[in-house]
């Protein structure tokens, strides 16, 4: 049986039809009004936008997924401005960044030379901001070392090791495409987990800077969120698998680079 595969034609972005990218972007935007998972310690929620943007590259291919996330983030900013006090910075952090990172991880077989340095840069920036840059000059307290380095490292060192290891360069990209359900679940969960651990660093640092977090709170937040990122990744994987299976059976034209 032959399969219809979309791609190449005008009116497409990275193989996905502009209409699909637009509509998925609109969905990502609308779901900015749906709180899905509370912040540890209260004060707000992660919107459904974030997991949907994270899986956009899996459903629409890397380029189409990232573009859908950009549209979704901007639409979300317009629909829920109160949830996006930092405007375009929030668009980048809650929508675009998860999509970009997941796209890099699922295409890591080819892109690991870019993925790994990008993860390292994220990790170093996440470690330094805000307690070292701007640090005391910006009124931020002194964090206890080496505890803080180790806690920040938990969010980027294992992810970086994974993207450099055969697990990241061969197995995860293979598993997300596997017909074996267990492998696919594992692959998607790991791809999202690795990405969201990295995502957590810039996502928090902007608000730590804006909310002027104390050193004690910075340390406590690293500890408190270690399970939270895993739970958010599990939620994302739980949403993705039935969706991918439904799309496979739907008879809709396939998209180059998507996992269904």
């Amino acid at each position, binding site marked *: 049986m032959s399969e219809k595969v979309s791609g190449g034609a005008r009116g497409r972005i990275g193989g996905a039809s502009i*209409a699909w990218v637009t509509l998925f972007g609109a969905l990502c935007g609308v779901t900015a009004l749906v709180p899905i998972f509370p912040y540890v310690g209260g004060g707000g929620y992660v919107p459904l936008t974030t997991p949907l943007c994270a899986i956009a590259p899996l459903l629409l291919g890397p380029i189409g997924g990232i573009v859908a996330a950009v549209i979704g983030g901007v639409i979300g900013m317009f629909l829920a401005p109160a949830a996006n006090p930092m405007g375009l910075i929030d668009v980048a952090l809650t929508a675009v960044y998860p999509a970009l990172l997941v796209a890099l991880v699922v295409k890591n077989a080819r892109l690991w030379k870019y993925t790994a340095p990008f993860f390292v840069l994220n990790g170093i920036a996440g470690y330094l901001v805000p307690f070292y840059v701007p640090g005391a000059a910006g009124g931020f307290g002194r964090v206890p070392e080496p505890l803080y380095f180790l806690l920040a490292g938990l969010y980027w060192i294992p992810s970086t090791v994974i993207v450099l290891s055969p697990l990241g360069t061969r197995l995860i990209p293979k598993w997300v495409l596997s017909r074996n359900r267990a492998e696919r679940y594992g692959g998607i969960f790991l791809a999202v987990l690795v990405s969201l651990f990295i995502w957590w660093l810039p996502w928090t640092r902007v608000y730590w800077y804006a909310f002027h977090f104390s050193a004690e709170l910075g340390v406590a937040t690293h500890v408190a969120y270690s399970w939270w990122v895993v739970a958010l990744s599990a939620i994302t994987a*739980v949403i993705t698998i039935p969706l991918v299976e439904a799309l496979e059976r739907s008879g809709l034209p396939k998209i180059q680079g998507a996992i269904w």
Partner: protein
Amino acid sequence: MQPMFRYTHRDTPIHRLHPLVKMVYVALTLVLVMYPITAGDMPVLLTWLGFSAVLWAVARIELQRFASLFKILLGTFIFLVLIQGFTYRGGHTPLIVLGHLKLWEADLGVMTREGTWFGLVLCVRILAATSALPLFVMTTRASAIVTAMNRLRVPQTASFMFVSALSFTSLLFEMWNSIVEAQKLRAFDIDSMNVFKRAFRAYVPIITPLILLLFRKGNDFQIAMETKGFGAPVKPTEIETLTTRPADVVWLGLIVSVFVVCTVIKFAG
């Protein structure tokens, strides 16, 4: 599920204002709230917040909307006041003493006056940041935003996608609500679930049919676009023609002046 802030047609100076001027206001708000903050920044933030309130009033946006904004942010405000109250490193004057729990530089058992004040300054900072975008959203038509995007040389495909997505949001709200109601009829009531059960169980039966329906509609949309010559190498027409009026220049001058005053107070103080 319905958005709280949507474009509302009124004939006010802010509604008539050039979208790029409003974009400058949103951008300057972001710059102002990203300045390094100190406990003495309350006058700066209140000046900008007061200016935003004036713009809200001129745009005749109901006070109730501002109250709703405040209500949404209340959780964040309580979090900030408590966190800063108990952990602020410059805090010396006890306000509430629950005990003593020293952790590095902070005594987590004592809520200090300086910390509480700093928490309030941060709340005003967040309120100032958040008040800009609703004003832009509620006073600017989608067609005007597209024209402004074209003026900023944003590619036409991008602005078309943005405006199409924006106009599809009503359809999506409708589809979302229909699917939620349909699931309720099947005794799957997400409103009765707790946060964690909802996070893991509730969204799959909603998102899966929604995305399938959406992609099917997307096929029709793609055909309609291509039939109407989307991507043809000609310059498309614009629904709205934007012209710069003297009033736009005056408002721009006012916005920039208030920003400069705030910056001077901030760095001279």
